[in-house]
């Protein structure tokens, strides 16, 4: 999946549930931060903050294939994997070596409806803070 082409069609994303810790923010803009579509800003439209950095997992974790439960799929109206865009929240450290992504709780976006949610996966082996540049 080419994240850049998909997300260019998604100016505004609506969270069906707010991100844990940010109950007041439901509408976000997904904006490209580079030419290639490898890194995005995820910016609240309800308030001036928060903004996040998110990345499609493919370039960093080629084997990452989160299993989304039937209930999440139903809630987002997903009919198949082709509708789903997975994005990882990045915690930018003081250096790249100190930068991590959250593999346990990715954002899942329905690219057709622009509805999204942060999914907390059942797989306890997935870290909340995986080094990005290993």
């Amino acid at each position: 999946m080419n994240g850049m082409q998909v997300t260019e069609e998604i100016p505004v994303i609506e969270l069906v549930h707010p991100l844990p810790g940010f109950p007041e923010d439901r509408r976000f803009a997904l904006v490209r931060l580079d030419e290639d579509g490898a890194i995005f800003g995820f910016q609240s439209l309800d308030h001036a903050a928060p903004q996040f950095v998110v990345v499609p997992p493919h370039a960093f974790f080629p084997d990452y294939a989160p299993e989304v439960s039937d209930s999440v799929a139903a809630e987002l109206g997903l009919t198949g994997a082709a509708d789903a865009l997975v994005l990882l929240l990045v915690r930018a450290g003081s250096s790249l070596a100190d930068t991590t992504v959250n593999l346990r709780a990715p954002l899942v976006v329905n690219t057709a409806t622009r509805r999204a949610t942060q999914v907390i996966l059942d797989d306890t082996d997935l870290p909340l803070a995986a080094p990005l540049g290993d």
Partner: protein
Amino acid sequence: MLVLSRRVGESVVIGDDVTVTVLEVRGDVVRIGIDAPRSVRVNRAELLQQVADANADAASPSADAVASLSSLAQAMRGRTDSASE
């Protein structure tokens, strides 16, 4: 906080459509079953807190950090593109 005593096999009904049942008590571990509509998300409290903490850590990085990440991402992407051809 409402406090109720329940025996194994007994339940509590929350609202119209959430039922919590005590399934087993062994030492200091209590197994509970939760029957709820799928629109009701059920998570362990400490895991939800960990995700909230991780989100707070990730929120609003500095412009410098974002710029560094952008260059890394481009380098990684270049590597992936050549590998997949």
